């Protein structure tokens, strides 16, 4: 499948895709029998993909997580769920378009599915505020989670945000309070919560819908306390060290899993979810079904206690040797 947008480090794969396209066109026009050629190029593409995508740096993974053709929350909902009833508004200020959510079914079983939504063109991006929620977005998410709790429906959140919106209105309306409230309420919500990082997992803006019994990351996504660019700007006092920062932050799915900060990784199609969205949808769907099946077996008290315990274990501290 050919993309409209390629990264520099994908040059080898891109060139082969272009050759493949040309060979196909020639073949279809009936000028020459190119079927052998097509096969050769296809196998070359597989090899090139292997060498390009098996040694990605932290920064390259961050780039893939932001690929403009990557599936977004509503794409997943559209392909994984049926009977999606989208619910709007926080009942206080307005509806935040950067967070979407509602009741739906996955293979006939009810879920509450909530996620940050990015836009695909300039107009949509503005409407969705680049996937950066305002406080009313987090309050809408909490309202929907409380509804799910009331009707005993499990919660699934899809995380894809460059961060909570920084701005005058966000501060006036209590961005910090809104996120904090969600962390506290999600910790004790009495239904299963499965969170999946489907793109960018930036800091409090991601965690604000990310306190789950199971937190999974898709393979080419990132999750950390700050974006590599901002980290570079603050610690190195320049925007140019983003590659270094991306590696130092250990923000990739494999590092996050190794450090015990997420519970699993969902494998993506080679090169990223946008190379084969259908494959990505079914991988995400299978993961949600698997996790919910085992979480549904726990009683409420155990579920909440295990969730709190899991987050309580996170962190690395050195106890004093004398036990003081």
């Amino acid at each position, binding site marked *: 499948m050919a993309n409209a947008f390629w990264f520099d480090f994908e040059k080898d794969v891109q060139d082969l895709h272009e050759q493949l396209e040309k060979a196909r066109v020639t073949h279809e026009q009936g000028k020459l029998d190119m079927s052998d050629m097509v096969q050769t190029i296809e196998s070359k593409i597989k090899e090139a993909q292997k060498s390009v995508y098996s040694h990605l740096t932290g920064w390259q993974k961050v780039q893939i997580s932001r690929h403009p053709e990557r599936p977004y929350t509503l794409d997943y909902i559209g392909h994984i769920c049926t009977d999606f009833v989208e619910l709007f508004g926080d009942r206080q200020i307005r509806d935040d378009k950067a967070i979407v959510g509602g009741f739906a079914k996955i293979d006939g079983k009810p879920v509450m599915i909530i996620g940050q939504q990015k836009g695909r063109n300039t107009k949509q991006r503005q409407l969705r505020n680049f996937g950066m929620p305002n406080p009313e977005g987090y309050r809408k998410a909490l309202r929907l989670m409380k509804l799910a709790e009331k009707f005993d429906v499990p919660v699934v959140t899809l995380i894809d945000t460059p961060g909570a919106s920084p*701005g005058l209105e966000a*501060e006036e309306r209590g961005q910090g309070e809104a996120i904090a409230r969600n962390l506290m309420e999600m910790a004790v919500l009495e239904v299963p919560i499965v969170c999946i990082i489907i793109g960018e997992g930036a800091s409090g803006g991601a965690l604000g819908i990310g306190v789950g019994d199971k937190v999974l990351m898709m393979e080419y996504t990132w*999750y950390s306390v700050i974006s590599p660019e901002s980290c570079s700007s603050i610690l190195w006092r320049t925007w140019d060290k983003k590659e270094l920062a991306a590696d130092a932050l250990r*923000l990739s799915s494999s590092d996050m899993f190794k450090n015990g900060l997420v519970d699993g990784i969902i494998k993506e199609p080679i090169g990223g979810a946008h190379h084969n969205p259908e494959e990505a949808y079914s991988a995400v769907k299978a993961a949600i079904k698997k996790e919910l099946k085992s979480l549904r077996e726990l009683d409420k008290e155990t579920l909440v206690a295990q969730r709190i315990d899991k987050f309580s274990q996170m962190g*690395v501290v*050195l106890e004093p040797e004398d036990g003081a």
Partner: protein
Amino acid sequence: MATEDHGFDEFDDLNPSDSKWYVRTLSGILTKTKDKKPTPDGLWEKCKRCKEVLPSKDWIDHLYVCPSCNYHDRIGSEAYFHLLFDNGKYTEINAGLTSGDPLSFIDTAPYADRIKVAQHKTGLTDAVRTAYGKINGTPLGVACMDFAFIGGSMGSVVGEKIARMIDHCIATQTPFLMISKSGGARMMEAAFSLMQMAKTSAKLALLNKAKVPYISLMTNPTTGGVTASYAMLGDFNIAEPEALIGFAGPRVIRETIGKDLPKGFQSSEFLLDHGFLDFIVSRNDLREKLSTLLSIIWNKKKH
């Protein structure tokens, strides 16, 4: 070997074995905070804002609040413990917890070195201290952040000490006071520091279920991940006057919107106006106001 071009020949006989006698081998202030001597009477200090000059002793007596302009100068955990607890008596817990370096993080300097330097400079082990004692006879648990330690940033130690203090408060049914003073999460612990937000908030949910009072005092500054977790979750959210309190820092917001920020934006008074604080309290009134509040909501239970 001083050379002619430096013109140091005449000093050679002062230290013939080492011509570099004039090079400072150590930099910075090396006296630990705890080793510093109290300023003797007769010395003067100037208010950082209104420039009012007062004897140092008056500053200490006024808890570093300027008597003429009410400017609240920054103080550390030790000063808060002394002003809050009866007779300045308290028991510190988990004082020996120190930070690991789970990611072997290196930016312009290794994180492990930064911790050592901060510990040496401040005499503290990390950016929060936790202690319990009594306030006007009522038991109180306090976690107080120290800005002097890497900007009061929240890493694993901060999260863990707060979590353990909350556990202590639940187990002993003791009201909990959190004094925040932080630039936010500690980047050098990356996602580990992010998860401290979830950890502390989860513990506060348990404190809430146990119906033990939680008072969150925000002081200058309280921003980032601290605001977006424990600082904003008080049964009572209170603040010192004119503290900077916000989620995004003013510089980030200014760059995002491309405009200067309105005067007083993200100040305690701004937050009070917008409904996010219960009240603003001067440091001089803090002890009395907390005691009064606790006498209404807490002591009645005990009698």
